[in-house]
């Protein structure tokens, strides 16, 4: 049943990180903003969600709260860039650094029992904690399908629902007036100015959405480790960007797929590649290294290093 195990891992991980990648679709592809804030907001989402679960609150509300927390800090990055004219990369570094403290405080607040020590700050979901798996419609779905060799069903399905919901909402948003303005801001700021609108506002909104998505991904991720720990946010920039770029370049010629759909597939493909690499018996300590190498390969093969007009191919 090794195959089923692998399938479970990359499907679940792929769906979780597809939400992160959709966030990058907004901030990186549409707005052309290399956002490093996600490194912090991914964990912030996880912490906020973790606090909801640890305190026995409704986890679906926790998911919404996680999204909002991501929006908040993404908005801060946007404000730093727009109002104080700080460069994109620096804004991300500043906010994600500040978030290390915020997240640590959050995690410490949520830590109960023997773990209450700063060095081992983790929120651990107890057996009876109510996660998305147990709340509302989660508990209506059987956890596993015994007839098919115990294939897991409930958790992947929940992730799928969340990912698809994010996709649909994002697609809807991008076709509103505000969404169209956002798309215009990324390609032609001057055009937006001539519409008598401040392009800065669109940038802040876009970064808020991008990081809100990252936070949702963080919240979902807590399910796979049954809790929150401080190292969860590491490497999110690479996972998000790699998923995004794989999706958009592999399905470049497929016109009937929306970009958001391509990004979901991209995230799953990237996770599948990671799983395959790990099957060669490489210790898990090498994970992040492999991720970076794989991403470099993607960049070379996809030929998607930022060229002029690169963005124009990536419309919704």
């Amino acid at each position, binding site marked *: 049943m090794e195959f089923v195990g692998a399938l479970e891992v990359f499907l679940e991980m792929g769906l979780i990180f597809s939400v992160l990648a959709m966030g990058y679709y907004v901030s990186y592809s549409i707005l052309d903003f290399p956002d490093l804030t996600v490194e912090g907001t991914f964990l912030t989402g996880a912490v906020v969600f973790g606090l909801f679960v640890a305190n026995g609150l409704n986890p679906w509300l926790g998911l919404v709260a996680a999204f909002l927390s991501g929006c908040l800090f993404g908005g801060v990055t946007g404000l730093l860039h727009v109002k104080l004219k700080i460069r994109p990369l620096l804004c991300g570094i500043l906010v994600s650094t500040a978030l290390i403290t915020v997240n640590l405080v959050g995690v410490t607040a949520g830590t109960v029992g023997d773990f209450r020590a700063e060095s081992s700050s983790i929120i651990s979901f107890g057996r009876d904690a109510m996660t998305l798996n147990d709340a509302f419609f989660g508990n209506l779905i059987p956890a596993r399908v015994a007839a098919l060799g115990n294939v897991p069903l409930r958790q992947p399905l929940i992730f799928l629902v969340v990912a698809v919901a994010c996709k649909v909402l994002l697609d809807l948003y991008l076709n*509103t007036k505000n969404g169209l303005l956002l798309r*215009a801001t990324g390609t032609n700021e001057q055009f937006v100015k001539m*519409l008598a609108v*401040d392009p800065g506002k669109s940038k802040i909104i876009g970064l808020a959405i991008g990081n809100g998505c990252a936070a949702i991904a963080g919240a979902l991720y807590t399910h796979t480790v049954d809790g929150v720990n401080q190292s969860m946010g590491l490497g999110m920039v690479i996972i998000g960007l790699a998923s995004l770029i794989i999706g958009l370049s592999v399905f470049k010629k497929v016109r009937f797929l929306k970009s958001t759909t391509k990004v979901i597939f991209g995230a799953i493909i990237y996770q599948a590649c990671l799983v395959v690499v790990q099957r060669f018996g490489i210790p898990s300590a090498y994970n992040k290294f492999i991720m970076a190498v794989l991403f470099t390969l993607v960049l070379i093969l996809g030929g998607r290093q930022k060229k002029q007009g690169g*963005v124009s191919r990536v*419309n919704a």
Partner: protein
Amino acid sequence: MLTLEHIHTAFHRGTVDEMKLFEDFSFRVNKGDFISIVGSNGSGKTTLLNLICGTLQPDAGKILLRDKDITHLPEFKRAKYIGRVFQDPKAGTCSNLTVLENFALADNKGKPFALGRAVNKKRIDYYKELLSKCGMGLEDRLNTPIGNLSGGQRQAIALVLTGMTDVDLLILDEHTAALDPKSSETIMELTDQLVKEHDLTAVMVTHNLRFAVEYGNRLVMMHDGKAIIDKSGEEKKALQVTDLLETFNQISIECGN
């Protein structure tokens, strides 16, 4: 209508490269004027437009639009009253959006950009009507991404988009310079149509002396941050391309070229 009062502008202020462009420069645009501005490179034409549009702030002086002080109003706020078409055809439209989406955005200028559906299907016929006036067959290409159109087509659309909402002032920033002779002719005719149709006040910078002479009711030649020729009405009508060339030559001799 638009007044620039005692404008001072210098570049690289406080360095050895300091270049004073405008010193106590004043300029007036009257309602209904269609001004062509000509002049050599570095004479201050584009800087003048940038000052009017708010891309650049003057070091001293005042800019008034309909008696309202707009000197410190940011560019995007001035855009409510001022429409601008750029030299680069890519600047006036959004390449990754379709023609229709560009129209939808321009149509919403001055209104809030909220969460309503961007494209209003009822307006499509109106957009088509506007496009058919360009005579480029663009009315059948509403769903084409603007990036796939030629420079001339994009500039025509940029012009139409600018004319869609009421602006007090139309700024044309060498808007035919990047186009082939045939397209620039077409764009110039469309511009003239637009100005007459909406009774617009327009300021056009151009290097095409023939356009400057043929179109508009006032002609200004800039040199060294000063308006050395400023003719309107009958005087402007009498002006020939050769007269302008002569002045250009004189300037060149003075400058030692």
